[in-house]
């Protein structure tokens, strides 16, 4: 029985994620090397896993406070103090969520009134647009360019500002491009946000994964703390994707409103994951640094590989993605991804899955072992030689 006529118009207006199709093809295929995975290939460091096992043995299986356990909020607050000299009150300015994904949903829902416009630089993570729409907002995509290393500038944003513009969502280090924003870049965005009195939702889930420089936290810029809803989590830095644990930090009014939604829809984040997160912040740093060093090696290998193939490509400085320009092959990004998986069994994600401005690019994740990256590069090179369009 077809029941699609019974669905909400809002849900119907959202397109399914462009990634699904490639997942279906790749899942059925033998001998696939996947550069399509948006999560670490490491398992969670043992010290984190072990601490949760201990907690379970001791019977820590209850609900926690809606905002998250006091220990975890304390550790998050300490982390921002030591890392970015930012002071968040653990009682009123931090909310522990089920992944940064939930935090994004809450943030948008907490501030959007129907018809409010949300500026979203693209290419970007797949959920920003959908969250804005589900909250009754109007997403306004703004393209970034490879020539500018996919950084967003006020000049690019300005033409899209209207009286209804209320929120700017930024996600740096960026999925899918690997772009980062320098302090100077961010200061310009801060001025822009102040000029138009915007709320900035800053998704900094890849903040620990930067190479050759340290991450600049948007909320740590002068005057930006009260304007920013900072989102982060443990998935990428500590290889904890399946734990579903993240958080939001910001002005007590924002966090209070988000907590209100969270307490009715989620109640609290899983207690076991919260215990793991505490251990990650207390003792996980050295394991995280080792993983980051390994990503950096792979990043250099894959960047060098694409350059040698003659594909236009900018050097990614963060996250674990590289976003080569494949338009010179004559294929669209979907065709390229589809042909490549069929002919050479290498899975990657077409750039258009991350917004229109991803056209002509593909996203390759280098969260995979060095020998697999080498093999994938060899197959891609082979594909370029033998399957010219």
């Amino acid at each position, binding site marked *: 029985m077809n029941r699609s006529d019974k669905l909400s118009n809002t849900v119907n207006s959202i397109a399914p994620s462009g990634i699904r199709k490639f997942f279906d093809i790749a899942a059925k295929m033998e001998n696939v090397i996947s550069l399509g995975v948006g999560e670490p290939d490491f398992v969670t460091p043992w010290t984190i896993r072990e601490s949760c096992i201990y907690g379970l043995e001791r019977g820590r299986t209850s609900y926690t406070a809606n905002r998250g356990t006091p220990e975890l909020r304390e550790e998050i607050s300490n982390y921002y103090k030591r890392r970015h000299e930012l002071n968040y009150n653990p009682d009123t300015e931090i909310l522990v969520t089920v992944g940064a994904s939930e935090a994004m949903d809450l943030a948008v829902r907490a501030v959007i009134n129907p018809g409010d416009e949300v500026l979203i630089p693209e290419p970007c993570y797949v959920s920003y647009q959908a969250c804005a729409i589900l909250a009754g907002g109007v997403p306004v995509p703004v393209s970034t360019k490879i020539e500018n290393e996919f950084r967003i500038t006020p000049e690019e944003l300005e033409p899209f500002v209207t009286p209804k513009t209320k929120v700017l969502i930024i996600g740096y280090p960026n*999925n899918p491009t690997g772009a980062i924003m320098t302090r100077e870049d961010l200061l310009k965005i801060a001025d822009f946000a102040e000029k138009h009195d915007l709320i900035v939702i800053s998704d900094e889930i890849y903040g620990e994964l930067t190479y050759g420089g340290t991450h600049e936290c948007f909320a740590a810029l002068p005057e930006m703390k009260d304007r920013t809803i900072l989102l982060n989590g443990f998935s990428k830095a500590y290889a904890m994707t399946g734990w579903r644990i993240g958080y939001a930090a910001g002005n007590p009014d924002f966090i209070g409103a988000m907590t209100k939604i969270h307490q009715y829809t989620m109640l609290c984040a899983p207690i076991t994951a919260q215990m793991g997160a505490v251990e990650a912040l207390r003792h996980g740093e050295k394991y995280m640094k080792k993983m980051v060093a390994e990503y950096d090696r792979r990043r250099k290998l894959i960047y060098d590989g694409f350059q040698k193939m003659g594909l236009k490509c900018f050097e990614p400085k963060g996250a674990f993605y590289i976003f080569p320009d494949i338009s010179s092959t004559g294929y669209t990004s979907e065709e390229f991804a589809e042909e490549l998986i069929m002919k050479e069994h290498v899975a990657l994600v077409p750039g258009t899955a991350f917004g229109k401005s991803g056209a002509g690019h593909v996203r390759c994740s280098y969260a995979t072992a060095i020998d697999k990256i080498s093999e994938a590069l060899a197959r891609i090179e082979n594909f370029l030689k033998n399957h010219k369009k």
Partner: protein
Amino acid sequence: MRELLEMLERNARTSTGELASILQKSEYEIEKDIARLEKEKIILSYGALINWEKFGDDTVTAIIEINLTPQREVGFDAIAEKIFRFDEVRTVYLMSGSFDLLVIIEGKSLKDVANFVAKRLSTIEGVTQTRSHFMLKAYKKDGVIIDDEEKDGRLVVSP
């Protein structure tokens, strides 16, 4: 240079091309660096870590604690040398604590190893006592878990 060494220590089969890309040098430079490290004996050898038991071999590994009477001028070094020159001896460490040398020996059988300890090691002048411990099972060696069942359970494609 440290990074080159770390990468080779983890996987000596990492190709010169891969090393060149990752360390952002030319292959020629990498070859030169490696040759120098070999010459300076910073790189000692290239081996593979092999699960011989899985291959079907039944070797016996024993860890021997040895007490010594140190000798004038040379301390423990001269006796240690007499021990580490034997091919059967895989590893020799000078230790603090209740014994002096820790020696790891591999042999074909229990008897083989016991014989070696009794006839060759304990008879060396300066060796006052030996205690042998036979290894029953290896769980982890040189940072590698022997029977690691952790698999990549990730979805092939994810956002």
